[in-house]
């Protein structure tokens, strides 16, 4: 057992998997000697060398496409996008190739690779270092999308992602990297992709969230309980695709009310799918409208802290939305 924050948990997952399986390699911008701009690969270059921890040219299309080729060939690449905001040059490879290879070859070629992407706002990164762009990928069939919110989940889910026979996009919220530490079991802890977790039990309404919003929702739930007498259940989705509707619906059946929370823009965000699925499959349980709380519909998080604060969700904003829904 070690006390790790999310960044350390991620590093340790990669280290253990590289140790375990020679086919695992890391590639990306500045992942080598520098150890990544957030330090996620710190020390791995020294340990595994120039080739298995490979500094690529500044070309995201290359990173994704060459990783795909290597995965087809038999390796298990972990590709890092320096920021999720910079994944778009790789979009063609991800949606045309990586997500479709297995289906189009009738299962004869697979692309077992992971793309790690630091995402999210609240870090003074403005429009291009703050994006929560998961919806572009959650709507892409053939990908699996993971977005952990705790160190233990980060480690166990990253290990599962590396071992998965299919491509996994692994979203790491930058604001959670060093947010808190927790005991993380050593060694063979591999989670199952596709399972949500009830992070806090409650009876009055269900809050569905992931990543940094898990942290905010839990804080909000404490405030709701202590200050407003509202018992919120907090469900951390953890995997966005495939979505664990069983856990989601069980929670809605229990509380009758669903609040879907994410930092990304509201219109067409991932929350739309969660809300629509609840509204359709959980209709009989609902005694209030499925409510979304999400980032405002502007093209990005603006920079100045006045503006950034305006954009970002917070425990206080969650409390407000939850109260309104609870009072419905």
């Amino acid at each position, binding site marked *: 057992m070690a006390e790790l924050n999310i960044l350390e948990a991620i590093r340790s997952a990669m280290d253990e998997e590289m140790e375990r399986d020679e*086919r695992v*390699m890391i590639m990306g911008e500045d992942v080598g000697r520098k150890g990544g701009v957030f330090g996620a690969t710190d020390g791995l270059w020294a340990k595994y060398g120039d*080739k*298995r921890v*490979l500094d*690529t*040219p500044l*070309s995201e*299309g*290359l990173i*994704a*496409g*060459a*990783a*795909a*080729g*290597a*995965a*087809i*060939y*038999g*390796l298990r690449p972990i590709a890092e996008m320096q920021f999720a905001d910079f994944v778009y*040059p790789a979009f*063609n*490879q991800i949606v*045309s*190739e990586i997500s*479709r*290879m*297995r*289906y*189009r*070859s*009738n*299962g*004869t*070629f*697979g692309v077992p690779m992971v793309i790690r992407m630091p995402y999210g706002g609240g870090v003074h990164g403005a429009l291009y270092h703050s994006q929560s762009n998961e919806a572009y990928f959650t709507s892409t*069939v*053939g990908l*699996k999308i993971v977005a952990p919110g705790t160190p233990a989940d980060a480690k166990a889910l990253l290990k599962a992602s590396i071992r998965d*026979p*299919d491509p996994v996009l692994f979203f790491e919220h930058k604001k959670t990297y060093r947010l808190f530490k927790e005991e993380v079991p050593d060694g063979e802890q591999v989670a199952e992709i596709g399972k949500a977790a009830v992070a806090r039990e409650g009876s009055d309404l269900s809050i569905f969230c992931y990543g940094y919003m898990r942290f905010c929702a839990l804080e909000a739930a404490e405030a709701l309980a202590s200050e407003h007498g509202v018992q919120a259940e907090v469900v951390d989705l953890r995997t966005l695709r495939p979505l664990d509707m069983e856990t989601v619906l069980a929670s809605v059946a229990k509380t009758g009310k669903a609040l879907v929370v994410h930092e990304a823009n509201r219109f067409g965000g991932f929350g739309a799918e969660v809300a629509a699925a609840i509204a359709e499959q959980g209709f009989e349980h609902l005694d209030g409208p499925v409510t979304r709380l999400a980032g405002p519909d502007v093209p990005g998080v603006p920079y100045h802290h006045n503006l950034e604060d305006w954009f970002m969700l917070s425990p206080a904003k969650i409390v407000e939305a939850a109260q309104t829904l609870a009072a419905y």
Partner: protein
Amino acid sequence: MNAKLAANPRHRELGLSDDEVLAMYRQMLLARAVDERMWLMQRAGKIAFIISGQGHEGAQVGTTWPMRRNQDWMAPFYRSIAATMTFGMTAEDIITAHLAKADDVSSAGRQMPGHYGGAPYNIVSVSSPVGTQVLHAVGIAMGAWVRGEDVVAITYFGEGTANQGEVHEAMNFAGVHKLPVIFVCENNGYAISVPLEKQVGGLSVAARAKGYGFPGITVDGGDVLACYAAGKEAHERARTGGGATLIEARVVRLTSHSSDDDQRRYRDPAEVESLKQHDPRGLFANELRTLGVLTDEVDERLRAEVKQEVNEASKRAEARPDPDPATAGRFVYAEEGH
């Protein structure tokens, strides 16, 4: 020329026996015959769409010939009938794929005609967005380099496709690490209707290789042995740590872009007519005849063999079952035991 050729035939200088050049010639005949059969089937309504390799066979057979089957890898494109067949696919594989039958090795009927691929042959499944396969070839070469394995990757694409950003990213990376990869650009002068001079600044794709730090050469795609020589040298270079090569083969597109296109809308009849003189099949036959390697008798025998092969392949392919819609939801993700 005759005398010179006869005294010192090019193919022997290149280390190819008479039997081997005849085998190459036969491969071209076979690819062409399959290709022509596809057009017939398309006109007969059996195939919705066909995209042809006619005129490109010399470049393809020549450059693929030195590749080691079951060891090297290929990332082809939609005109790669001859290349994929040289690398192991059979006439029946190609025809089955065009008919989109349930046991088509490329996609089990999921992809359009021309989307080659075959796990048993180390041929990566190809998609439609042009140029994406170039990165896969580079990724395979990178994989081999990381693992220290003796593998060469070859990839094929058109001159229009050379202008995609991904192709640039792929070539640059190959240059940085001297990766064992061969880029073959089949320059047929058109990207659908858009001619070379509106596609390629500077008019030479091969010239770009210098900007990536590896050799780029231009060969006459009508000259099979020149293509073979270029492919062999590139393969040697890749295999021995010398890195990548870009081969630009100047070829002719003997057909319209595809069965959906009519090149008379944008191409001069005289230009279209003149292309036949550059047909690599005829040019190779002439050369081999001049050398006495190919005789009327041999040619007739080969043509008869090829015709029979295509007939039988077609018959078998047509008899295969169509895909079952109940399978259409499968293999989105890996299935246990697959």
